[in-house]
């Protein structure tokens, strides 16, 4: 292998690593606030990619069907939760929960054929994918929010299954790929680095910084951190765990949507590509003990690099390698936990 190939693989690794990094952030964020493992993060990323591609090519994104279906189910579920059940109460809930999705669906249908530029399409994609987060939380997780981590894990697996299955129906089995949003490149260390790659890394960094800023400087962000640190204390301050959960899911959906938008031009995306992407972000998050962001960040880059170099040398085994890496991570975490907790 010579320098050019090495640098190319390095670049590839960094680009994909950035995407795994922001996914890992989303997983850790959601777990620390709600104790739910975001197994379906990959699906959200991929659905966002497919939506972006559809919008760029002028076709109505079929994700609106999924959004509509989930929001309707959630709304019906919410209606049956209120006591006493009145027509007026039901209508209020339906308006509140279906108002925004309906508007977005209309916007999607109207704006799609206009073949807008990448920025406009990206914003519309975000507007479509973000509400999926809180809707899934309300439908699948809110009724069992106080359950054990394992129960939530099984439910998250169930959600992953449902979304993957729905993905096939909604998006079909064809793979898609968009052209890059930015063309051309720049010369770094004698290597041609496309603007597209730089965009991915820069946007990822921006998301990380934004997330940091949000959680340390804004009132809502602090409230979310408080919910993660001490749920009972937060409730006693009037910070509702339900609101925190929905906020966490909304943020995670936003992060995944952004990741999906960035991912779309990088490779061919199929309806089930989300699984493997999700699992890689998951590996990185595990290394952070599902709690510590910096470690997860570093590991994500490492995973991206490993993947890149592994694909050069032992392409067929690269998935196996990545997943077996989780085991030492789990060991290390569990050893650290045992040390601090002792025998009890």
């Amino acid at each position, binding site marked *: 292998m010579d320098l050019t190939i090495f640098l190319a693989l390095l670049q590839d690794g960094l680009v994909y690593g950035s995407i795994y990094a922001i996914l890992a952030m989303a997983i850790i964020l959601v777990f620390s606030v709600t104790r739910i*493992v975001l197994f379906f993060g990959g699906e959200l990323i991929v659905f966002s990619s497919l939506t972006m591609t559809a919008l760029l090519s002028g076709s109505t994104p079929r994700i609106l069907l999924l959004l509509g279906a989930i929001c309707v189910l959630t709304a019906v579920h919410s209606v049956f939760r209120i006591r006493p059940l009145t027509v007026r109460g039901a209508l209020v809930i339906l308006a509140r929960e279906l108002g925004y999705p309906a508007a977005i669906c209309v916007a999607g249908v109207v704006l799609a054929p206009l073949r807008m530029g990448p920025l406009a399409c990206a914003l519309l994609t975000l507007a479509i994918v973000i509400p999926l987060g809180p809707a899934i939380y309300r439908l*699948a997780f809110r*009724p*069992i929010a106080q*359950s*054990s*981590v*394992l*129960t939530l*894990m*099984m*439910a998250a*697996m*169930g*959600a*992953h*299954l*449902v979304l*993957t*299955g*729905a*993905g*096939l*129906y909604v998006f079909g*089995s064809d793979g898609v790929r968009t052209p890059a949003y930015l063309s051309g490149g720049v010369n770094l260390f004698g290597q041609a680095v496309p603007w597209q790659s730089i965009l991915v890394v820069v946007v990822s960094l921006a998301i990380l910084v934004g997330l940091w800023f949000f959680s340390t400087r804004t009132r809502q962000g602090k409230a979310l951190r408080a919910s993660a640190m001490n749920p009972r204390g937060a409730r006693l301050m009037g910070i509702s765990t339900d609101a925190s959960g929905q906020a966490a899911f909304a943020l995670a959906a936003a992060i995944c949507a952004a990741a999906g938008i960035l991912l779309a031009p990088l490779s061919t995306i199929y309806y089930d590509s989300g699984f493997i992407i999700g*699992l890689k972000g998951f*590996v990185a998050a*595990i290394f952070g003990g599902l709690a510590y962001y910096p470690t997860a960040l570093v590991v994500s880059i490492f995973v991206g690099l490993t993947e890149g170099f592994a694909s050069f040398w032992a392409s*067929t*085994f690269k*998935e*196996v390698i990545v*997943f*077996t890496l*989780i*085991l030492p991570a*789990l*060991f290390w*975490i*569990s050893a650290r936990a045992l040390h601090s907790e*002792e*025998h*009890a």
Partner: protein
Amino acid sequence: MTAARKYAAVALGCAAVLCLPLLGIPTSWITLMVYIGLAALVTVGLVILTGVGGMTSFAQAAFVGISAYTTAYLTTRYGLSPWLTLPLCMLATGVCALVIGLATVPLGGHFLSIATIAWGVSVYYLFGTVEAFGLNNGITGVPAIAVGGFEFKETRSFFYLVWPAVGLALLASSNLLSSRVGRAIRALHGQAELARACGVDTMRVKLTVFVFAAVLASVSGWLFAHFQRVVTPTSFSLEAGLEYLLMAVIGGSGHLYGALAGSAAVVILRGQLEGVLNGLFNLTGNYEVIVLGALLIAILHAAPDGIWSVVRRFCRLPAPRVPEGSTAPDVSPAAQPERGTPVLTIDGITKRFGGLVVVNDLSFQVRAGEILGLIGPNGAGKSTTFNIISGALYPEHGSVTFLGDRLSGRSPEYAARRGVARTFQHARLVPGMSVLENVALGAHRRGKHGALRAMLRMNVAEELEIFGLATRQLERLGLSSIMHRHAASLSLGEARLVEIARALALDPLLLMLDEPAAGLRHGEKQALAEKLRALREQGITVLLVEHDMGFLMSLVNRLVVLNFGTKIAEGLPCDIRQDRAVQVAYLGEAIGA
């Protein structure tokens, strides 16, 4: 239902099942039943692993796959007979499970489950990437199982391979769960601390269950390979693993038979869905996945934490054979040390939690044949001290010595083995077992027969001995009348006494009671105090932590008073009561005084 009638019913059920293929039932139904049987083999193991043992595994399908690929490879490449590959598969899978288990089981809790996902996916990808396994096309042309000249190719004949296997699996599981090892397994989920206090090596027991579930899955894998005669990776994906878990979750509401119910429900549902959805839509494939995922979520909503506790509460096994009181073999009790000699020595122990000193340079002794009370206001460090002595916590400084043996820094199992028995603040009993079985758990270290002998029912003599011992402890405390009651149905007073009986079954030299009178009514407290006095007469040494001063004052020989982790007084009850420092500790000091 008496044991005899129960066996008759089971026998009848077996006979009925085995007759099915002979009746004029359509082949498609028989095929369905074969698949149900194959799934049930895996699910029975999973129910014990997850429902009883408390380890949620998402990847049992990987073990099925290891076995299936092993036999497919060996029979196609090397022409071995399937009957030869069966033990090989079980062995290979067992070894894999042991290795993976050693890495995974110590993680505990949700990290254990995450680990199962990790290696489950790894193994799945391995199947698809190893050349010799045929990559994504898998291995084809796997031969059928044959006996003499007859080949089990047809569904109807294969039925007679699968269902006897299921029957044997259920029998082995049932035997395992009602044995000494089984009692330890049943104590794992949620009561691991209790198991350790009875001297159970919980890690070893967990590994045993893990390997057992894997071996059951391997039998299913072997059968599967020789039924389908084609082995591809997709049958062993994470989705397949989730399906087994769903079966265990659905069916877990009863017996081991719940595994059958769950498997039947999911297999039939899947079959129906394929038919219906293929009719409605043109695209095949992932619709069953949506329904299964939604079903999993819906069931979790309906009974989120309840399913496993329901399993444990209703997991009724036939009442164990109980020997008559007088003919029970007498196990000679351990020799008690001479009255008055120091039995337990606490020397300068200090313990910190975070920056806070919870126990501060504490020293005292417990002498043989006395009842010593450890008291103090809330937050004084009594429970921490207790946990340090019993091995649940390690002190930063100082030592705990028991009859010359150092206990500090060693595990709770070690303390239990040395003769220190303890009870818990919240009366921990295994809810799914009877009173007698709970007490028998205390006698765990008296037996030595493992899982294999249990499954083969070769442990009858040992079980009789253990139950004899347990019965005697219950008689000692006047609890014979509630011997066969379910632990979950006891009143608090009865539960506390049963805990003491269980502690006595360890044949202890020191009995440690953690707030035994808490929550009891006045009459129950009197009764408890009398029983404790009687035990003292018999030469047992007792250390107890208590809040109720009235209960203690007339019971104990001496008192040690703690406040802020430090000993502030030690001596006779009447002296302690007048002690000014003790009064201030409990009632506080007026401010500005």
